[in-house]
Each structure stands twice: as structure tokens, then as C-alpha cells.
């Protein structure tokens, strides 16, 4: 079976620093994959190499067999990647729903002069509202992003990525900065999305939630894959424990 998303032997360096050193992993259809590792392990860099914000020195990224490695960011998005960034970046001059509408309108924004001939935003508004409902912030639809709390903006970021109707949803620390209750609720939303058929790569520091929701884990450390498999099995690996939690630490550490 070919994987939905395949990262093969990807290496990235910034100046003299090697951020990724031959990372290989794959995402199967319908999976909720947790990509974890200590700070500086290369998780975000791996995600950026997938979206194209970072150009790898070597290696390939393929989506459903389509090689993405040389495509610019917007083409990868159109090929089926949806990304929710670690630091929320809403379009601040737009309302929440407009943020999502724009993403829902990729068919209309394909080419500038084609876009010039299209005006109707009705269907996209309906879709956007549905996505805002999915992530549970429909009541914030007409609000300006600057007036919304971080928890809502995190969900907005996710709704915008969902509106792209991606084959793979990439979530970079969606729970960071949220309190315990908010984090749990958003993690539940992620599980629901996954059950609804969205394949997801989740980068997360909140180990408790990761262990609870993910079906498989890939552990990165120092730019290399340290472990790949079922959450309990991976976390039981002494090498992973040492790297990720420090020598002698246990899984019950919860929040890393």
C-alpha cells in the first residue's frame, strides 16, 4: 500500500546547523499521526519541508505519489496540504469568516484574471460557516481576529486549513498556549475531524493529549527519527525516554 504522504530521507540545514538529518516517515490514509520530540528536534522544520517553506538539501516529499519537492508553497497547498501554524496568523484586516471563505475559494483564486471575473462569495460563506461550526467557533464568525482570544484563533487557524479541503492536515502545536480545559476540548475536536475522514499530522508538546488521541507516533531527536510506532510501544523505548523525557523520567510526566 502506498502512503498518503511520504517523507523520504529529508535533510535540511540552516547555515552550518543540520536541522534535519535524513528523516523518513509516512502517513497512511485516515491516520492521526503524532510527530513529537524535544525542543529543537526538528519537528517544525519537518513540517516546513513538507509545506515548502523550507527547501531541503536532499530527500523527497510525495503526496499520493505526486512529488512535491520542487513545487512552491501555494502549489503544494493546491495539491492537498492544509497547514495550521504554530503561531496563529489570521488575516487581521478580515473578519474570522472571511479568513475561512478565502481558503474555501481556492477554485476561484486559482488565476488572477479568472478571479477578476468572479464575484459571488455566497457558496464560500456557507462552507466557511460550516467549518467554523466544526471547530466550534461559529459565534465568532463576524468578529475581527484582534478581538478574539488565543483559543478561538487557534480554532480559526484550523478552520481555515480545513476549508482548503486538504488530503492531509498539518497541525503545528495547536494546543500550545491553551489551558488544560481548552486543550482537551481542541484535542477532542481533532479526533472528531480525524474520525470524519481527515488524515492528520499533529506536532504537539502536550504529551498527555498526544498519548490520548494519536494512533501512531514518530519521535524526532536531533533531526533524526528515533522511534516510529504505536504510542505505548514508542514511549516504552528506553532511547526515546532518555531523549525525550530525560534519563529516568516516566510517561506519567504528562505535560512536557
Amino acid at each position, binding site marked *: 500500500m502506498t502512503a498518503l504522504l511520504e517523507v523520504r530521507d529529508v535533510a535540511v540545514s540552516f547555515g552550518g546547523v543540520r536541522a534535519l538529518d535524513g528523516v523518513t516517515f509516512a502517513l497512511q490514509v485516515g491516520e492521526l499521526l503524532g510527530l513529537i520530540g524535544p525542543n529543537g528536534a526538528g519537528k517544525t522544520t519537518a513540517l516546513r519541508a513538507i509545506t515548502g517553506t523550507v527547501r531541503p538539501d536532499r530527500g523527497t516529499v510525495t503526496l499520493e505519489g505526486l512529488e512535491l519537492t520542487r513545487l512552491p508553497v501555494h502549489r503544494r497547498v493546491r495539491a492537498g496540504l492544509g497547514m495550521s501554524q504554530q503561531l496563529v496568523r489570521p488575516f487581521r484586516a478580515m473578519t474570522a469568516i472571511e479568513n475561512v471563505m*478565502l481558503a474555501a475559494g481556492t477554485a476561484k483564486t486559482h488565476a488572477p484574471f479568472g478571479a477578476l471575473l468572479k464575484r459571488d462569495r455566497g457558496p464560500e460563506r456557507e462552507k466557511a460557516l460550516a467549518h467554523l461550526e466544526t471547530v466550534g467557533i461559529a459565534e465568532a464568525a463576524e468578529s475581527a481576529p484582534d478581538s478574539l482570544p488565543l483559543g478561538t484563533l487557534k480554532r480559526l487557524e484550523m478552520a481555515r486549513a480545513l476549508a482548503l479541503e486538504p488530503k492531509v492536515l498539518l497541525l503545528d502545536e495547536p494546543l500550545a498556549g491553551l489551558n488544560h480545559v481548552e486543550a482537551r476540548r481542541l484535542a477532542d475536536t481533532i479526533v472528531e475531524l480525524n474520525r470524519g475522514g481527515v488524515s492528520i499530522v499533529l506536532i504537539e508538546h502536550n504529551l498527555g493529549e498526544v498519548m490520548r488521541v494519536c494512533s501512531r507516533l514518530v519521535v524526532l531527536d536531533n533531526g533524526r527519527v528515533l522511534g516510529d510506532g504505536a504510542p505505548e510501544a514508542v514511549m516504552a523505548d528506553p532511547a526515546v525516554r532518555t531523549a525525550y523525557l530525560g534519563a529516568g523520567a516516566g510517561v506519567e510526566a504528562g505535560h512536557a
Partner: protein
Amino acid sequence: MEYEITLMTLAGIAVIAALGLNLITGFCGQISLGHAAFYGAGAYGAAMLTTNGVSFWLALPAGALVAGALGLVVGLASLRVRHDFLAITTMGVGFLFIGVVRQQDALGGEMGIYAIPDPGLGRLGYMVLVVVLAGLVAAFSLYLKRSWMGFAFDAIADDEDTALMVGIDVARYKLAAFAMGTAIAGVAGVLYAHEIKYIGPDSFGFPESIAMLAMVAVGGIGSVGGVAFAAVVMTVLPHWLQVVAEYKLLLYGALLFAVMRFSPGGLAGLVRSWRTRAGGFRIAATGKVEP
């Protein structure tokens, strides 16, 4: 009456040029300090044609084409620069244009091109043409703002990196903005050349670029009505008041500074906040206080 007609014509030309810049800077968020170069490219392109016997009606679209083509080239070269660097790059283009024009005997060199033929519409007829074209450019701007192209421009002006993340081909949209905005500047240039009947390198220098940017900023970056209004006032005022004419650059500079410091939304921003405040009072008066 003659004088008023001339003023109206010049104001209309300024509106066209400023709305062209507004498309690039206001809608798409790409600052340009060299807009006068494209204005000049249109003027020179068309004047070369009409002084050689080509019809004004052919020279008008040709001027737009020349300016738009130059805009596309500059746009391509500027794709990798942003913000302050884009400002400096476009400023450089402005100086480059003047420098090249001064050296070209074919373009009249320092002397410029004079005795540009009259389009033969009469003073009033020409004014009507200019005003109609200004109206068309304004209508086009308003249409564009509400189209999906305008929607994508909003995103690019807001945050280019995030625009890529929602699948927008930022580079192509920027090029489209440059091509359209500079072609519109070219139209204004053609109209200017055939109004004044003389053009020289000094007609399209850095002060003209700053004046256009001031019109856009004072009117309210991105606001079609505000920019058109500011373009009319800032063209007419120096002709009415000698003081304004003498200190034009100083005044425009001060205006730019004042707007950026006190009301970054320009006049349009001021009107909007007054309206909101007035709306607030109305709500308070009826007792229905809503968040």
C-alpha cells in the same frame, strides 16, 4: 471657464494616476515610490507616436501598453523584495527612468518633446474624455475590490506568507497588480502629454511620484473615493492658492507625515471613525447599547 476646464482636466488625470497607484499600493499592499516613471512611460510612448502622425486614439492604448509592459518588467524584478526594500527599488526605477530619458536624443533628451498634436476634441471635449476615463477607472477599482481578485489582494496586503498557505499564487497576483496599476498610470500619462502638449524629464521626477503617493495616503490607502477626492483637492489647491504652489513639496511631505502619524487610514479612515462614533451616539440615544 477655460481655466476651470483646464483644472478639471488636470484633476481628472491626477485621479487616474492616483487610482492606478492605489491598485498597487492600496489594494495589493505593494509600495511604489516610482509611479511617475510609468506615468512618464505612457506619456513618452504616446507622444512619440502622435508627433509622428499616429492617431491619438491609437496612441492612448499604446501608451497604456508601454507603461504596463514596463510595469510588468519592474514587477518581475521586484518579486523578491518587500516593504522598505521594494520602496527603495521602485524609487530607483523612477530615477533610472529619468536618467535614461535625459540621455536619449530620440526622446528629446533634456529638451523633451514639444508641439504634441492636439487630439482635436476641443477643450471641453477633452475634459469630458478625461472625466469619463477617470470615472471608468474608479468604477473598475470598485468592481475589482469586490471580486475574488480583490479578495486575494486583501490577503496579500495583509500577510504574504499566509496568503501562500491558502493557495494563492502571490507572485502572479502581484504581477497582475503591477501590470494593471502601471497601465492605468500610462493612460494618465498619455492624457497629460496631450493636455500640456509638452513633456520633459522633469515632468515625471521623484516629486511627482511622492505627490501621487501622498494622494493615495491622504485619501486613505485602498479607499477609491478617498483617493479620488484627495487627488482632486491636491491638484486644484496649488492652482488656487499661490502659497500652496510655492511650498507644494513641503506641504505634501508634511501631509504625508501627518497622515502616517495621526490617521494611517487617511481621510477615508477619519470618515469611517466619525461614522462609527456617530453610530455609537445613536445607539446610546435609543438606549439599545450593543457591544
